């Protein structure tokens, strides 16, 4: 019985003749936080975006291989891509706050993808903002523009927006790389809370963060200029092995 929530099988990405990611076969378990670590430019974010087919919005990318979500193939005609992206939500490196109010930002996904009556939106927004540990800071100014928030608050607002649609899996693409240390800590402790309900897949190039929040990691490094899955397991396991190409260089540069 396959217990993984997501499993990739020979998943590769290329742009024209240039190969971006060599075939990756990886099992991602449903519980806990799965980290993807590796140097910049190794295709970590691209890999993340293949998991909810968001990479298809980038023109010119070819994706081969397969991703299975609980055993069901995702790259298959007949798959409802929008429904998939609702279940497998995404948080970006830079917070993407829509040019509208805080409240409208939180319910942005809900108002389109759920059949929840309008009168229930305020409760739902409050719950999502509480989950994202932002409620106390914004409860008196929900009608104010989301862009007035600090960058750390904006990222938590994005998290609240994702949580409002109750995703099964949250993909996070270096969610703290644009944030100050205080906000980074807030997001990290949130990840600890959230992993009880959601599966989280976190791309990070920060080893301290990987140590702190990830239960398992996959190391994607560069081989001949192409991203390649070089190892996976717990961080301690990876550290104790001394035959992973590029891993020691990566650790010492961090």
């Amino acid at each position: 019985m396959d217990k993984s929530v997501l499993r990739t099988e020979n998943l590769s990405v290329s742009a024209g003749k240039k190969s971006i990611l060599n075939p990756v076969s990886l099992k991602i378990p449903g519980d806990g936080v799965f980290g993807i670590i590796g140097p910049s430019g190794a295709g970590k974010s691209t890999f993340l975006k293949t998991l909810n087919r968001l990479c298809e919005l980038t023109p010119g990318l070819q994706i081969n291989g397969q991703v299975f979500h609980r055993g069901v193939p995702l790259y298959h005609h007949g798959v409802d891509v929008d429904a998939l992206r609702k279940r497998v939500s995404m948080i970006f490196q830079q917070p993407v706050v829509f040019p509208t109010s805080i409240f409208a930002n939180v319910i942005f996904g809900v108002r389109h993808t759920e059949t929840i009556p309008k009168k229930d939106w305020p409760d739902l927004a409050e719950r999502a903002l509480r989950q994202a540990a932002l409620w106390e800071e914004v409860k008196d100014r929900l009608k104010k523009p989301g862009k007035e928030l600090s960058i750390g608050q904006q990222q938590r607002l994005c998290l609240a927006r994702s949580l409002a649609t109750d995703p099964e899996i949250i993909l996070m693409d270096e969610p703290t790389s644009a944030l100050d240390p205080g906000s980074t800590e807030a997001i990290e402790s949130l990840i600890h809370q959230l992993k009880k309900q959601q599966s989280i897949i976190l791309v990070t190039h920060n080893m301290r963060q990987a140590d702190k929040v990830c239960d398992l990691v996959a190391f994607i490094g560069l081989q001949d200029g192409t991203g390649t899955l070089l190892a996976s397991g717990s961080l301690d396991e990876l550290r104790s092995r001394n035959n992973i190409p590029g891993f020691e260089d990566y650790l010492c540069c961090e």
Partner: protein
Amino acid sequence: MKRKFFDLLFRTATCLCVVFSCAVLLAIIGFIVKQGSSAVSRAFLTGEITGAGASGGIFYNLVGTGILLATTFLVSAPTALSIALLHGVYLRNYRHREKITILLYILNGIPGILFGIVGLVVFVQWFGWGKSWLAGGILLGFMILPTVSVTLIERIASIPRKYIEAAAGLGLRQSEIVRSVILPQSAGGLATGLLLGLARAAGETAPIMFTATIFAGATIPNGIRENPVLSLPYHIFILAQDSYSPEVNSRLWAAALVLVILVFAMSIVALPARLKIHEEADHG
């Protein structure tokens, strides 16, 4: 030394060009104001044309131009929006997009008089409408279509991709992304394009002279067939051919002044929408 000289020369030439074009504009406006302001009065704006333009006012010319512009708006706004969405959202193939752009530029290069003649053949003769306000509105609508579409296409292309990705990442369908991300963020572009286009349409004579407008004897249309309107540009055109008497002459310039104010007002209204674009571009 040589480089400094060229720098100075270039700067001087640039300034002279700007001064020259501003001077021409100011001279034209100044001349129109000087010639026309004495005849503009409340009675002129609210009175009906009498004495073949030598007396009376331009009330129904204003009404007619208003009707033509409203029709132009209703024709061009949805068409331009569809073209821009096709170009920016639904067509993924770069070559198909290019084809649309080329077609729009060709359409932009077609002279007004050709629109007039095509309209004469299609609407006046083939459809049997005779001269009709609707024919004029449709022709003007298609004439300004490139201006409106290209402005909107550029506005849609400048929407940061991150918004579209974020909305897609939440599971929104394409139609919902169009409604909740693309339309709100490109509304300024639609407004700007429409007002610039309408400002141009307001002064066009050639497309409507055979198809939609007459010099005197029309009020408010009550149908489509044989229902022409009066209009400001055609009024000016006829009076200009006939301006030997001083009464006609002053009324000609007064009508021109009203038209200039109308067009200028539309450009001013478009200004906030345009400034908003720059503001957003600055703040990324």
